[in-house]
């Protein structure tokens, strides 16, 4: 005998993420979920972002990257509130982990909460954490075919930061190819070409981020 069920496998996570969203909203807080493969430059972009914005916005960071626990120390050094999540080897952050971590902050005192997700282009795309937007980083050293290999991540994210453009002369990847491939998957994606090393292009990313925060506050 067959019993129809029709339930979403991720229903519990979706529910928790929606609750997180409601809590963030009531604190008038903008939350961004930052994803990429390991080493693409999430922590580096965070450092740059904090440096540029910390005088204007009150920022908090949740560090979920399992690659190294030094990330939280790097962020603390940059001068903002940071909480490290122990993912126990998990390949992604989920709503529940964020629920625990977010309780460590005085949310109403923050304007912007940045979540550095676990370095992985696959799994985090399926798990909402309660963010306003998802953003991702692709470094030019990873190649320009990545959008076609990891379509879900590129479709779920509102913004793409193409990082390490200072290395373009040494790699085969072409910015144009990345842009073409992204356009096929997500024509509304905001794209920024940056180097966290030289600082090139960072201002455009900052301007976009600030605009998102302002819009959400209205």
């Amino acid at each position: 005998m067959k019993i129809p069920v029709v339930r979403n496998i991720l229903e519990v996570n979706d529910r928790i993420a929606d609750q997180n969203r409601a809590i963030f909203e009531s604190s008038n807080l903008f939350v961004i979920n930052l994803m990429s493969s390991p080493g693409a430059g999430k922590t580096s972009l965070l450092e740059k972002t904090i440096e540029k914005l910390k005088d204007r916005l009150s920022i908090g960071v949740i560090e979920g990257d399992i690659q190294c626990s030094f990330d939280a120390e790097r962020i603390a050094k940059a001068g903002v509130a940071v909480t490290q999540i122990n993912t126990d080897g998990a390949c992604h952050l989920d709503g529940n982990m964020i629920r625990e971590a977010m309780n460590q902050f005085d949310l109403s005192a923050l304007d912007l909460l940045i979540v550095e997700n676990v370095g992985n282009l696959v799994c985090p795309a399926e798990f909402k954490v309660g963010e306003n937007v998802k953003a991702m980083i692709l470094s030019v050293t990873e190649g320009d075919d990545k959008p076609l290999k990891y379509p879900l991540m590129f479709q779920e994210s509102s913004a793409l930061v193409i990082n390490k453009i200072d290395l373009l002369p040494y790699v085969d990847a072409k910015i144009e190819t990345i842009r073409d491939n992204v356009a096929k998957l997500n024509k509304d994606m905001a794209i920024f070409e940056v180097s966290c090393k030289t600082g090139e292009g960072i201002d455009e990313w900052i301007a976009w981020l600030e605009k998102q925060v302002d819009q959400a506050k209205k």
Partner: protein
Amino acid sequence: MHEMALVQNIIDIVLQEMDKYEVEKLQAINLAVGRMSAAVPEQLQMCFEILTTDHKLTGTKLNIRMVPVTYKCWECEKEFTSAGITFTCPFCESPNPEIIFGRELKIESIEVVD
């Protein structure tokens, strides 16, 4: 490898449903998994086997129906499916059709031993 988390969720939901219908044993669980989702069917099977060792669900079959990606063209509004990803409408060749199915991660039904 987030399949472990997915399978844990599947098991939780299925146990709830078994309680609801007062069922002790299941023959099969039927899933629908979109080809655009980030779940790998072989990994789901493997995780299911590991997580149901010495368990109420030991021996229950996990049937996975892979859902092809279905697109709808913005221009001519026709719908079509594709085994992989595609970027042009086969009818009018307009770019970037919208994905309407193919991302599901659903439990569709459970089967009780008669």
